[in-house]
């Protein structure tokens, strides 16, 4: 089972169908069961027994998750594979000692791969859907794998299957989620 963490401003918010369910459907499409939990509901306990965790994005104006840093402290301690999407990447960066800072991108954007990795599409460049007002630094112990003209787009922990992607793979890059599952969660 994969734990999908909802980072939207409140449980059952109007962002749930837009940012959480499309990710859950990609995972279920790979014949893998999903459990969805809001980040305020002690996700660190629910992760026990899961094969992987995906932290979802949020609406463009929604940065409420950053006010509850303690809700993400478990990310740095768990051995379970992690994939953070947009806000989820920012949460991972913060949990591992990185920083978040303003950077706006909206719409389809060119991404350049800067280091090869099996999670990536296999091209030197690809396009991806962006919807963020902030990005993050590459935290200590991580490497950057791809970037846009504006900012870092993919980070990976140097020793563990912990990834962050700033773009939204549920739009035209579903393979990123599918490869995360097949490479690290099965």
């Amino acid at each position: 089972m994969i734990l999908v963490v909802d980072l939207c401003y409140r449980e059952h918010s109007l962002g749930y169908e837009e940012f959480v369910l499309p990710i859950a459907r990609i995972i279920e499409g790979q014949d893998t069961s999903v459990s969805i939990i809001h980040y305020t509901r002690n996700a660190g306990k629910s992760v026990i027994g899961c094969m992987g965790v995906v932290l979802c994005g949020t609406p463009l104006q929604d940065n409420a998750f950053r006010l509850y840093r303690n809700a993400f402290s478990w990310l740095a301690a768990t051995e379970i594979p992690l994939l953070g999407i947009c806000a989820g990447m920012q949460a991972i960066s913060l949990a591992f000692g990185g920083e978040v800072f303003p950077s706006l991108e909206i719409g389809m954007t060119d991404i350049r791969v800067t280091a090869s990795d099996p999670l990536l599409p296999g091209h030197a460049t690809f396009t991806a859907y962006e919807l963020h007002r902030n990005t993050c630094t590459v935290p200590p112990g991580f490497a950057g794998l791809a970037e846009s003209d504006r900012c870092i787009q993919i980070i990976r922990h140097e020793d563990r299957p912990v990834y962050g992607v700033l773009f939204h793979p549920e739009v035209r890059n579903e393979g990123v989620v599918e490869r995360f599952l097949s490479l690290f969660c099965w």
Partner: protein
Amino acid sequence: MQLGVLCSGGKDSLFSCGMAKEREEVACLITVHSKNEESYLFHTPNVGLVRLQARAARLPLVEVDTEGIQEEELADLGRALDMAQERYGIEGVVTGAILSVYQAARIQRLCHDRSLWCFNPLWHTDQEAYLQALCDQGYDVLISGVFSAPFDESWLGRKIDTRALAELKQYAAQYRITLTGEGGEYETFVADAPFFTHRIEIVTATKEYANYRGVYRITDARLVEK
């Protein structure tokens, strides 16, 4: 949160409105009347009847006109958002976008420029489950325009019910149309919704159809008790 719902009169905007009403406060509907039937952003058949839908939903309506010229349409929508902020204090916008990155990204930018939240509750939805929910939850949805093969004239004015849904599924598989018409294959008009206090009765309508393109133009309609 006070929200304005972008409303074309079709199923996607009104179903999204219903979802928004369950979670937040819907302060108004917002509609853009495009003079261009090939509008890039705005669904056009029967958009004038949004006034009747707003009355049925007991919601105020913010309306603006646009010539429907690409990109200038955006400025006109921006004007509508400004009016909705000023008159009704909206803090966010709801759209019925399902797959269109073109539409979604442009509206996201307009909202960002005004510090408005933007919600797309049907974004990448399970299209079959969504259409079934429309039927199950009491939405009365009519086909108001067809714009691709294999739709014949009989689809104009037809209600989307379980039988129509089964045919749409067959068309989607056979002709590679999007099940929800997101690719512009068909347009819809909502005559009733669970949150309407009255339903819309179509008194007169005309059909124009040729070569897999047609419009069901509602020429007279009124609110009646449910």
